[in-house]
């Protein structure tokens, strides 16, 4: 469950000779393009990532427009006929009315629970909450990890020692354990507070990565040049080093979000996450666990949405890694190579 804190996967690195050789071809391909354009172009070639992006967007759109959402006291209505909190009369014993093969949606596509709440509305509300927690945890975790890693790697010495020992201490406690303790304390204050607190414990892995990146980047010539030109530390960190480390940060922020949704649902399942009357996908699963043998649909749909979201985010992370790391190129398959050879000789 603590997958937010894993170190980067080692990527296959071609030898230097190969790289200069390949660079001639690779450079032609990206000639005249900005960094952003190159990344976008490479990303759009990763089929899994693009599909995941579309699916995730569809889930977000569905979750927020269908049942509407609440900001403070302001309630935005949605197009779905039921509310997540209201109980209506049981129809057909709460069985789901969704029938994909006959294109029938029906009144309660995901069914109803024993008191008559529409599960579609409940799951949509849970998805909203889980998505929100995922995004907040991702942002807070990324922010803290980047700041701590950057300061540590840039200043080295005592600052680095202190911050890294602190990171070691936090990393010793499994995320789900410290998350449970903190979640029990603040869970009652609502989902956003829970997300803030979770964000405060998942930054450790990213901090180590960013530190390593900064340690190597700060020795490069362009940093010396900036320093000689009289740039202040802040400027060097934010304008010179950080843009070069953005790949590591973005990729790991994505993976952090994928881990965050699993941590949140796991904690809510244990009862230390989101508390009633708020709901989240993990909480729905937890509430309906005992009803599995009689009403399995209460259990299938929230689980399905957890997996769909986590899978999409993981694939997007994979696509971003490919896009930001030009060393990792996809080799053409043997068949394609053979075809190219034949075409060349013919």
């Amino acid at each position, binding site marked *: 469950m603590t997958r937010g804190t894993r170190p980067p996967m080692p990527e*296959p690195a071609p030898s230097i000779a190969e790289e200069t050789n390949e660079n001639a071809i690779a450079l032609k391909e990206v000639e005249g393009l900005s960094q952003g354009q190159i990344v976008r172009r490479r990303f759009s070639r990763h089929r899994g990532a693009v599909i995941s992006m579309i699916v995730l967007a569809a889930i977000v759109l569905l979750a927020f427009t269908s049942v509407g959402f609440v900001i403070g006291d302001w309630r935005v209505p949605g197009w779905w006929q039921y509310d997540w909190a209201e109980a209506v009369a049981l129809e057909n014993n709460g069985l789901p009315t969704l029938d994909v093969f006959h294109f029938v949606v029906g009144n309660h596509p995901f069914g109803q629970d024993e008191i008559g709440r529409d599960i579609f509305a409940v799951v949509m509300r849970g998805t909203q909450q889980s998505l929100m927690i995922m995004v907040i945890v991702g942002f807070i975790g990324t922010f803290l990890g980047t700041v701590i890693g950057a300061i540590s790697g840039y200043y080295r010495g005592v600052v680095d020692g202190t911050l890294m020992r602190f990171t070691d201490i936090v990393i010793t*406690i499994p995320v789900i*354990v410290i998350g449970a*303790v903190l979640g029990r304390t603040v869970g009652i204050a609502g989902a956003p507070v829970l997300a803030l607190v979770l964000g405060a414990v998942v930054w450790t892995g990213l901090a180590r990565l960013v530190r390593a990146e900064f340690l190597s980047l700060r020795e490069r010539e362009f940093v010396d040049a900036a320093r000689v030109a009289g740039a202040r530390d802040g400027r060097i960190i934010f304008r010179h080093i950080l843009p070069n480390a953005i790949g590591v940060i973005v990729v790991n922020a994505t993976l952090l979000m994928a881990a965050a949704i699993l941590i949140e649902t*796991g904690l809510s399942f244990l009862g230390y996450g989101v508390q009633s009357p708020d709901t989240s996908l993990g909480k729905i699963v937890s509430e309906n*666990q005992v009803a599995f043998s009689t009403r399995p649909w209460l*259990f299938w749909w929230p689980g399905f949405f957890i997996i769909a979201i986590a899978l999409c985010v993981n694939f997007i992370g994979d696509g971003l890694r490919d896009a930001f790391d030009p060393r990792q190129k996809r080799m053409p398959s043997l068949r394609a190579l053979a075809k190219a050879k034949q075409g060349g000789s013919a």
Partner: protein
Amino acid sequence: MTSFVVRRLIASLVIFLAATYIMYVLTALSGDPLADLRTSTSPQKAQLIASRTALLHLDVPVYLRYFIWLGGVGKCFIGQCDLGVTIQNQPVTVLLGQAASSTLQLVTFASLTAIVLGLIVGITTALRQYSSYDYGVTFISFLFFSLPIFWVAVLLKQYLAIGFNDFLSSPDIPWWFVAVASPIAALLWAAILPFSGRNRLWTFLAALGATAGMLTYLKLTNWFTYPHIGVLGLAITGTAIAFGVTGISNGLSNRRALTAALIVVGIGVAIYFPFLYGFSFYLQPWSFALLAVVTLVAAFFIGWRLGKPDRAPVARTTVIVAFVMGLLITIDRLMYVWDDYSASERVKGRPIATIGAMTPGLEGSMWVHMLDTFTHLLLPTIALILISFATYTRYSRASLLEVMNHDYIRTARAKGLTERTVVVRHGFRNALIPIATIVAFDIGGIIGGAVITERVFGWKGMGALFQYGLDNVDPNPVMAFFVVTGSLAILFNLIADIVYAGLDPRIRLS
């Protein structure tokens, strides 16, 4: 070496102490331990509050209360651990003793299985990069990454356990299953094994025949009612394993290694009957462990004697073969009591357990209890493995791919080494180095997962202890949980460092 271990241990202990302090304070401040008494209507309310305050030292500020707890833990060094009492005045040390063994079993078992499976799958996918097998495994590992463990656990409980138990109550493999499963298995083998063209077709046909034959055998002998491996099965499997292990680790051209491995298999087959019907009845857990050690040492000596001039790799092969043979014989011994076990009063013909870590009140020999432990470990282990398996597969694949791109691999190929030597000696060994770090890193994740899995499967393990403490704002059980799991993590990290140095001679420990 010793000085390195000692220095590492001291550094980890200092960090761990700081972590325990944070955990203690956070847990103690996570709520009001007197909440239930404050709202009670009992006439002796004030008295109850006073007694609990005295019991848990609630009058001492949290920042200092930690040191009372630490003092109790410090007594471990003089042999009388005192981890405090719970809110109901039960000594935590006793509770921990009951809880720790089942959780440690689960975590260790799951970690080891996940490492072995993940390595095998990761390495094979790396060797067959961008094949359909590779793409399939990549997608599956992404899927496993995204699975919420509690959800999987509930599914396993509902479908795998209940379904398999239903199957076992009238075990018959229908012919249509044989007809459907064999081609699927054959397709998988053809995709996994590194052959192409005509050879791949032969792989497909061989796998098809083997699977169909196996399933038919299982069906006709009513295997699931009377499971067994048998002396013939042992001999065939053992020989196949001897060839396989030697082929991978020494190369089949190394006749001495092959002979040594086959001798070990022969000895295993020879002691099969005496073991099964003879001395296995007199074994106790400790003598069983002793027997296992003796077996491995004996196998080592066989390899060492026969393995001239290159002794160590041959000895390694014989030890691995002996381990697998021992495992097979043990499994067969466990299958021998299967019928007794599943028909027994307490199990009532539903052997795959969904609740708890053991069947209460089960009577029988050591083997019955061992089998009981395994049937209870099965589902939680699968749930835990799924997720770690994905991690290990991805990392070992990436790691081996990176290594295989290095110049020294090209050199090794250029000087005419066999593909086996290149992959196993030059590639695999170096690929293991980064994986050792991941393993140590992942143990925290497995422990966290174990807390959730234990909850789903109703284990009275450490996860339950943790939850009990947290629910009652009682730091002592929570800290007991954390001390054991934290020590486990430190231990794994230390092992990883030592393995690191063993794998990479450039790293000096001192």
